[in-house]
């Protein structure tokens, strides 16, 4: 497996990628758009992109992922895709009857410079229907950037400040996480007694139930009315800087809703921070139900610390998830020694901050030294592991090749997970999600210990 990857590590400087740890913007935008109730995502480009993105979402969620496309031909690529988009808008509203069409772009339409807002203005849009858009050039950032851009598009087109006083409600921008995570974040807010508006919200859309009927627009998703009303909220919590902070910032500018950027609430510290932010802003005590969960989590961490303490771990994936995972494994006493995201990191001081700086700031107090890289690829990650082996890899399905090649257990976290089921229904966020992560991590390590043990060392109780 991966026999062509040499151990000898040489800095590559071509700018090319071998085995990416990211994909391109539009799939993130499509995912975000599916988090609007009765919305059909639309890919303005040639149809290959749209099919690829739908396929990958369907493989990850094992759910339908509906979207339409402008289906560019060579002619449109040269002369502009205005007619294609106009035709698409007419056809989509007539045939598929969504309430909202959320248009995103591809490298094709960005390169030719189609002016989407003007095209939308010129299109026939039925009464009461909405078309929103986001520019999502595939040659910038990654799928996380695409998610961020479409979320920003929602604010841009829909959010309105209409009340003189801000309402006692919080906007939750959950970031590029699974429907199971979105459900858990909403539940925590509910248990805290805080009214929330979550957008995008794919729960109920990409984890919809089997009823014997196909519903093109399932029950879930943030409604247009809710996204509009987000302009009247007292606070926006942007969970995950890369996926959520841009939209929160725009909402603060456009509707004067203050924004707080938090880590994706993975693990105990980040979940504490989320609850503390809600507690402070809404003067709500943290109820016993959540305190009990937290105490259970600490109890589990204490009971099992010897399963994972001091173990070396390699983590890769999307920046917000990797940041959260790194913080959590540090709180478990593990040593994250290779940490990589494919998403470019943002320069220090930019709006996005720096992935590498964030990670280093967490590692330093823990006394852990590690390879840390933003904009890296799995070829590099694998070479790191060849030179400094780890006990565990945490990442998406693409990590399974390295896991097999180096005989290291893999815990599947992030996007996409194409070879296991159920993962998208259950959370990794919150105290409950942290428990699930511990179960997965110690399960993987103990299964391995069982497999490797000599008969006389094979333990009944561990």
């Amino acid at each position, binding site marked *: 497996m991966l*026999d*062509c990857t040499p151990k000898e590590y040489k800095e590559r400087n*071509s*700018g*090319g*990628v*071998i085995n*990416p740890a*990211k*994909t*391109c913007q539009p799939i993130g935008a499509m995912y975000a758009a599916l988090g609007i109730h009765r919305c059909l995502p*639309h890919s303005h480009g*040639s*149809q*290959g*992109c749209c*099919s*690829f*993105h*739908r*396929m*990958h979402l*369907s*493989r990850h969620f094992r*759910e*339908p*992922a*509906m*979207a*339409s*496309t402008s*289906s*560019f031909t*060579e*002619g*449109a*690529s040269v002369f502009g895709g205005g007619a*294609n988009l106009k*035709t*698409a808008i007419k*056809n989509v509203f*007539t*045939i*598929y009857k969504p309430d909202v069409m959320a248009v995103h772009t591809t*490298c*094709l339409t*960005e*390169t*030719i410079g189609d002016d989407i807002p003007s095209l939308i203005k010129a299109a026939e849009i039925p009464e009461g229907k909405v078309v929103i858009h986001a520019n999502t*050039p*595939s*040659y*910038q950032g990654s799928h996380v950037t695409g998610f961020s851009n479409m979320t920003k598009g929602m604010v841009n087109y829909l959010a309105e400040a209409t009340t003189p006083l801000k309402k006692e409600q919080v906007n939750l921008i959950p970031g590029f996480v699974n429907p199971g995570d979105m459900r858990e974040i909403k539940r925590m807010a509910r248990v805290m007694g805080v009214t929330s508006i979550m957008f995008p919200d794919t729960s109920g859309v990409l984890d*919809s139930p*089997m009823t*014997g*009927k*196909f519903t093109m627009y399932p029950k879930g998703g943030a409604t247009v009315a809710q996204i509009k009303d987000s302009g009247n909220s007292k606070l926006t919590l942007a969970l995950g800087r890369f996926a959520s902070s841009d939209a929160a910032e725009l909402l603060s500018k456009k509707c004067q809703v203050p924004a707080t950027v938090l880590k994706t609430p993975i693990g105990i510290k980040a979940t504490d921070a989320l609850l503390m932010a809600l507690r402070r802003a809404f003067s709500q005590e943290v109820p016993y139900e959540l305190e009990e969960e937290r105490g259970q989590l600490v109890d589990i961490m204490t009971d099992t610390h010897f399963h994972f303490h001091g173990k070396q771990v390699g983590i890769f994936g999307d920046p917000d998830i990797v940041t959260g995972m790194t913080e959590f494994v540090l709180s478990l006493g593990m040593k994250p020694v290779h940490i990589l995201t*494919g998403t470019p990191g943002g320069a220090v001081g930019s709006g996005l901050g720096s992935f590498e700086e964030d990670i280093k700031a967490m590692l330093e107090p823990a006394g852990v030294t590690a390879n840390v890289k933003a904009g890296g690829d799995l070829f590099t990650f694998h070479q790191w592991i060849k030179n400094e082996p780890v006990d565990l890899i945490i990442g998406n399905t693409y990590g399974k*090749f390295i896991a097999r090649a180096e005989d290291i257990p893999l815990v599947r976290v992030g996007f996409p997970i194409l070879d296991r089921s159920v993962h998208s229904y259950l959370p990794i966020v919150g105290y409950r999600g942290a428990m699930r992560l511990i179960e997965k991590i110690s399960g993987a390590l103990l299964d391995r210990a069982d497999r490797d043990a000599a008969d006389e060392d094979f333990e009944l109780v561990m």
Partner: protein
Amino acid sequence: MAVTEKELQEILEQYPSKVQKNRKKHILIKDGVEDAQVIEANTRTIPGIITNRGCAYAGCKGVVLGPLKDMVHITHGPIGCGFYTWGARRNKAKSDDPTQNFMNYCVSTDMQESDIVFGGEKKLAKVIDEVVAIFHPHAITVSATCPVGLIGDDIAAVAKAAESRHGLPVLAFSCEGYKGVSQSAGHHIANNILMDRVIGASSAETAPGKYPINILGEYNIGGDSWEVERVLKEIGYTIVSVMTGDGSYEELKNAHTAELNLVQCHRSINYIAEMLETKYGTPWLKVNFIGIQGMIESLRNMATYFGDEELIAKTEEVIAREVARIEPLIEPYRKICQGKTAFCFVGGSRGHHYQGLFAEIGIETVLAGYEFAHRDDYEGRQVIPTIKTDADSKNIPELHVSPDERRFRLKVSPEKMEELKQKIPLSYYAGMNVTMKDGSIIVDDLNHFETEEFIKLLKPDIFASGIKDKYVIQKMGIPAKQLHSYDYSGPYAGFNGAVNFARDVSMGFASPTWNFIVPPWKDEPLLTGTVNEEGVA
């Protein structure tokens, strides 16, 4: 079961008028009385219709090139295109030299904004250099993506310069996603360059064994090709190359030495099949290794072509033994499947090829179609002279080859060829339509709306298509069978494949899961008891 014109019209009337007019030409109700029903195919996709189609890059890099295991395939573009064609299509490959098997790698130039603005040629050259330094491959391919053509990167020039720099073939494919109207354009683009640059590139003049053949248009999904090769080798054939499942640059170079080319997927590889005949005089035979009868007939046709008594006898011996072995294995599955109906909508070949296998386990195909096939795949190759290339496809280059002065050799005499053509489909494919029953539906570029409408109308027991449809269909309580990825199972080709397929389809019907869809409380009123006239129990 047959659909009436009126019912079809009712579906179409829900479309805007322009769409209605267009889609009408892509849908046929099979009528055997009317000879030569014409379908419109290989035309542009209607924007917003929710097509299942992909692009030319997918057809070129994803389908044809990707399976060639000893070449490094570089995607010149932003990251998505390379990422989505990384391991997602199950073209299996193994290699005696694992350091020359690049199947699990995805190499991309990962174009950034600056590459769009200033051009990506320099970066591409550097990536090629890096690939050579790290991997030392036998050959490299470079596939273009949408923005490459627009910004004017000359990938052919970059590839040529890299060839002389490194002394190894670097093949450039201008398969930008917007070319043509579907994956089909990509097949054509890939065929041209493989024919021009790879096939015949070795010095070999003869094949290393008896009855040398190439298998064309077989991508070894889930090990299909290996199962077919198992049987062919046992009969005594020498397999020179497979295009391109588990294929390699090294094997493909020798493809000119075969005596016969077998064509499984007509759509994707018929260009090479034709060009091999023109250039080297090697005829091609349309085969179908899917289904027991398809397999038997293909083996017999091959034996007829070679006409060797020993080969014919061995063919019959292997057929008899294999059939005797698998029949009892399939029988229990037939009991489960008997009398059911299927939709079969797959890319450009399986929509036809699986109908026989479905029939063998007792399932009738009531609707079939292709995403991107051409009229000849529906109606048969005899219509090719009447097909007009429209504006959207006319920019796909045609490669014209002529007989190779040194190597051209008629494999059989013209008289013998004519005689054989009466018996077996030599250099001919009859298309899908001819095998379908009267009243069944043939749909080109089936979209989501029509999928739902036809399901309502025909209520099939199983729907065979792809991943984008699968969960839509299952939500309706109908088993869905992926016939691109085989739902991660396989092989489905050959004798063992037929058993696997029957098992998997039966599993789809027999799974207890379908019994749980309706919760028990939906079948029983909350309050039981009698209600009297006053409404009080």
